[in-house]
């Protein structure tokens, strides 16, 4: 029996020639990631062990991105804890404000994670890196602490669900819409504990930014990881950025899938997830009477340069609707600088939006755009649980950046084709 790409990567990191779903392993970790919310607990836990040194400082990445630039004194204390831990243990991949970006935009961009890696992160959206042919999964702070000490993580090898996308995408339809469509189909626990493997001609034609957006939201279907077999697109993306040697894995023809879902997406229009679950998905044209108060364009899902380009394409020479607050958040400093060079930042400011330094900020109701009671946001982020972006009785709709930009212009949820 052959193995899936997920099984192959876990096998290669746990000393097994062959491995199968359900097996329990302690796997060697290439990169373990923590942020300003999750790493403080990990550091405190690690220090209870009485171990002098971390297992491998080069495998540890600390990205204070959630509440930075520090939103309050307690957050500043947490960031300080990360900074001091990085100094003490000579962790080179600590990113200070000014160099920091949203973790799941930053790590692929900087080539810190590379194809064939096994990556854990104390952040649920760590599954993003599967887009590059990496086994990558979200864990908790204690897992991270254990990895600091041992270089390992306990894992149960997941079964894989394969998703095949055929057809040709319409204009304004992106990777975000594909993953929202899948979550709408299988539900928020439809892939619980499973690997989601995305394939088909549509994926082959998809950019790395769009692939990252898709794998980013695998967790919203409950998955352990999302993954795409590396190809020419992957090679073009990692070549020149990879900080370490990389290896391309692919699934064997005779591997075993738990389920296979096949979609023809030629007729798919941009998708929007309604409150309060990412599975409440409708085509954008069915929601044209929904008014909104705030639009957020950014996040680990859609804070990459191609996301800002498409938003700027729609907003160019326009003003947003007077009742709308538009918040644009480039994912990293490099994305910000590129957007500046391309004139995108000027487009957003002239449209009367605000542009923020890279931060997770409003996505999780942290800072930089909190909603009041009864307010409604349309956001390119990944979660729309009740109160996610602020007051427990505020609402979040999720969409791609083109829909978000078009809706900022009209004040209502709007198909980008309606904007000329």
């Amino acid at each position: 029996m052959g193995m899936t790409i997920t099984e192959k990567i876990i096998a290669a990191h746990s000393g097994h020639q062959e491995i199968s779903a359900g097996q329990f392993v302690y796997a060697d970790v290439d990169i373990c990631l923590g942020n300003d919310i999750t790493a403080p607990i990990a550091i405190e836990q690690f220090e209870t062990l009485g171990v002098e040194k971390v297992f491998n400082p080069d495998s540890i990445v600390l990205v204070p991105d959630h509440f930075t630039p520090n939103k309050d004194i307690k957050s500043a204390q947490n960031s300080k804890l990360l900074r001091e831990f990085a100094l003490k243990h000579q962790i080179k991949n600590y990113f200070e404000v000014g160099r920091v970006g949203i973790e799941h935009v930053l790590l692929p961009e900087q080539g810190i994670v590379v194809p064939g890696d096994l990556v854990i992160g104390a952040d649920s959206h760590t599954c993003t890196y599967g887009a590059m042919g990496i086994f990558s999964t979200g864990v908790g702070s204690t897992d991270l602490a254990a990895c600091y000490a041992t270089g390992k993580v306990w894992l149960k090898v997941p079964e894989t669900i394969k998703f095949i996308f055929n057809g040709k995408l319409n204009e304004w339809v992106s990777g975000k819409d594909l993953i929202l469509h899948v979550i709408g189909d299988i539900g928020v626990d439809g892939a619980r504990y499973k690997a989601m493997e995305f394939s088909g001609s549509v994926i082959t034609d998809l950019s790395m930014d769009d692939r990252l957006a898709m794998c980013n939201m695998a967790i919203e279907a409950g998955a352990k990881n999302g993954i795409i077999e590396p190809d020419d697109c992957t090679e073009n993306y990692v070549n020149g950025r990879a900080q370490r040697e990389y290896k391309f894995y692919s699934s064997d023809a005779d591997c075993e899938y738990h389920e296979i879902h096949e979609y023809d997406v030629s007729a798919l229009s941009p998708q929007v997830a309604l409150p309060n679950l990412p599975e409440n998905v409708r085509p954008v044209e069915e929601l044209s009477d929904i008014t909104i108060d705030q639009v957020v364009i950014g996040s680990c899902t859609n804070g990459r340069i191609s996301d800002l380009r498409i938003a700027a394409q729609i907003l160019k020479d326009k003003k947003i609707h007077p009742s709308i607050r538009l918040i644009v958040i480039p994912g990293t400093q490099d994305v910000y600088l590129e957007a500046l060079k391309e004139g995108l930042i000027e487009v957003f400011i002239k449209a009367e939006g605000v542009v923020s330094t890279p931060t997770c900020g409003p996505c999780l109701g942290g800072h930089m755009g909190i909603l009041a009671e009864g307010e409604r946001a349309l956001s390119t982020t990944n979660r729309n649980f009740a109160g996610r972006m602020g007051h427990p009785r505020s609402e979040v709709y999720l969409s791609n950046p083109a829909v978000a930009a078009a809706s900022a212009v009209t004040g209502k949820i709007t198909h980008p084709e309606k904007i000329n």
Partner: protein
Amino acid sequence: MINGKSWKYGDNVNTDEIIPARYLNTTNEKELAAHCMEDIDPEFVNKAVEGDIIVAGDNFGCGSSREHAPISIKALGISCVIAKSFARIFFRNAINIGLPIFESEKAGIEISDGDSVKVDINSNIITNLTTNKEYSFTPFADEMKDIIKAGGLMEYIKVNYCSS
């Protein structure tokens, strides 16, 4: 042996509801406990007493990886969580920090709010003392039992990796 009163919730109770992000600027267990379940049941911390049990439907603890969620539940003195199913990061976090959790389809459906519930970990039996019904729960993998027996992942690591 665990014995307590049930507080019943539905499907997809998410980590934002268990501990909202506005309280994630601290790692202090007492502070986190003071806001446990705040956005799904603002009165929970006032109603629940030490030893009580949370019972829920499918996918309990879905959403973010924040360990603050099981920490807030444990620090409040909740003795265990019984659910039809758990989201995977919440599941491993609970195992890792030593918050007892039990997956039981029927118990998650049939136990009602306010029922008196007993869990016998050794015999894998959940008993609803109010209705006199018994339920089994999904047994843990042997490797997870080792972590649970040690009292959590840090204790397990101490014995198995740090002692040599």
